């Protein structure tokens, strides 16, 4: 029995006892306080269940706002002193307890034998995007088997992510010179290779002049705060391995003996067509550059490493006017937000304003209607009119009843027509 389990059992016991005392308490104010205790226990349960945002909302909205409203009405009506008259349905409490026990036993067996713990999280489907960095290559269109992943992607551009099903595919890349959509069944692809897409990964397909570099990235939550994750790709053809470095702005061009002090190597000795191991870095602004044999191959560039992003940094040849090679190189930085922590305010907010926007609007509308309804119900005129209507209908009912009873009496020898309807 772990410590967590012991704490869970204690809090669960408190929650159940608070609910029980709420039920049996004669004083409505005590009941409300017991209900608050119960709700605070439930907020604790939400914390245990990775739902910190809901735990906070539970305390502020439920234990705070709603229970204050209850207390207000109890005190307003003086309802804590209103004793309960003996019920007319003597069998109801007994039947209720019996049915409740029956339901609990059934539910216990259903939960214990229903294997609810065997449910597993649904894996997120893999996502694919295409980046074109092949100098002198016309825009490319990429197919997975016979399904098109992107429209044509131009040189130096990247497509957005697209969700696909996990599995093994044949990756086909067509270079379209004439602007027509290629037909994967007839045309022959410029480049092709098998690809395996796994769940929970975001795959970037980088098309260079002569090959495809497939970079899988993990876009799940970064556990450490203030951290970015980065992967470096070398798409600069026919060069010796490259070092990706970060430069201290205080001394951008240090003397060879000071190199270790001012230059940090972020990805060492990266050959063409390879990508570095994914590593993390503290968030911040960096000056980055690439080196071949300690010689810079491009001007130092700014890298804005925002926290909770995953950065894909691709070094590729720069094209001059009309696609002519310049001999220089440049880099493309693709920064993607990683998913936010499960159950946190960011995660809830993102889901609320994307998938659940319409229900959210409807619920706000419902709240508005409820507010108007509460105002109308408690207006003095409404209550007066209602009282009048009840009086009128009562007297009408009595008159009708008298007629019915009179005719019934005259026809038969029954003494009383109905006992219940006389109210």
């Amino acid at each position: 029995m772990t410590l967590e389990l012991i704490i869970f059992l204690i809090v669960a016991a408190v929650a159940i006892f608070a609910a029980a005392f709420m039920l049996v308490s004669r004083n409505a104010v005590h009941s409300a306080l017991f209900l608050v205790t119960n709700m605070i226990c439930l907020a604790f349960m939400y914390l245990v269940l990775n739902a910190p945002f809901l735990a906070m909302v539970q305390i502020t909205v439920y234990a705070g706002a709603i229970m204050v409203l209850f207390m207000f009405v109890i005190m307003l009506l003086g309802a804590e002193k209103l004793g309960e008259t003996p019920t007319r349905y003597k069998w109801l409490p007994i039947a209720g307890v019996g049915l409740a026990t029956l339901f609990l036993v059934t539910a216990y067996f259903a939960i214990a034998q229903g294997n609810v713990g065997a449910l597993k999280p649904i894996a997120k489907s893999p996502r694919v995007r295409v980046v074109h960095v092949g100098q002198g290559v016309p825009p490319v269109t990429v197919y997975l088997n016979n399904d098109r992943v992107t429209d044509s992607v131009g040189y130096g551009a990247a497509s957005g992510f697209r969700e696909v099903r996990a599995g093994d595919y044949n990756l086909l890349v067509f270079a379209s010179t004439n602007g027509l959509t290629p037909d994967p069944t007839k045309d022959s692809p410029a480049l092709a290779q098998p690809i395996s897409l796994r769940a929970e990964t975001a795959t970037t397909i980088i098309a260079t002049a002569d090959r495809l570099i497939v970079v899988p990235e993990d876009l799940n939550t970064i556990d450490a705060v203030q951290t970015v994750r980065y992967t470096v790709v070398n798409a600069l053809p026919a060069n010796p391995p490259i070092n990706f470095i970060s430069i201290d702005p205080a001394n951008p061009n240090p003397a060879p003996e000071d190199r270790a002090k001012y230059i940090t190597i972020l990805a060492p000795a990266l050959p063409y067509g390879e990508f570095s191991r994914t590593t993390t870095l503290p968030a911040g602004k960096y000056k980055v550059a690439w080196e071949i044999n300690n010689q810079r191959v491009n001007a130092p560039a700014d890298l804005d490493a925002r926290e909770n992003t995953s950065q894909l940094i691709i070094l590729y040849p720069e094209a001059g006017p009309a696609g002519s090679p310049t001999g220089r190189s440049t880099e493309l930085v693709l920064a993607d937000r990683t998913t936010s922590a499960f159950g946190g305010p960011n995660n809830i907010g993102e889901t609320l304003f994307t998938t659940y926007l319409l229900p959210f609007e409807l619920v706000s509308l419902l709240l508005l209607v409820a507010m108007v309804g509460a105002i109308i119900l408690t207006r003095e005129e409404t209550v007066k009119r209602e009282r009048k209507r009840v009086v009128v209908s009562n007297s009408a009912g009595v008159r009708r009843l008298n007629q019915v009873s009179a005719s019934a009496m005259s026809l038969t020898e029954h003494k009383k027509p109905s006992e219940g309807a006389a109210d």
Partner: protein
Amino acid sequence: MMGNPSIPIEYFVILSAVLFVMGVLGVLVRRNAIMIFMSVELMLNAANLALVAFSRQWGDVSGHLFVFFVMTVAAAEVAVGLALIVAIFRQKQSIDIDELHQMQG
């Protein structure tokens, strides 16, 4: 990412079932309208607990959103319900539901 397998989901679901049943009992047994409302709140809370527990099990945040909506609907329900109780109390000077049987069956 998903922590805490040390407390199985069954425990949370059973706790939720127990609390729900206590709420049902409150609705059946108590005759003070405010007490009945509080029991309904207890039932909603129990359902919320089950939703959050299953949400963690599936690794899907939709359950949390449902809890959010349930809380909003509960707030609306309490606002209208308590307004009704106040209106009834003004008219009848009582909120005992046994004394409110206008519609007899």
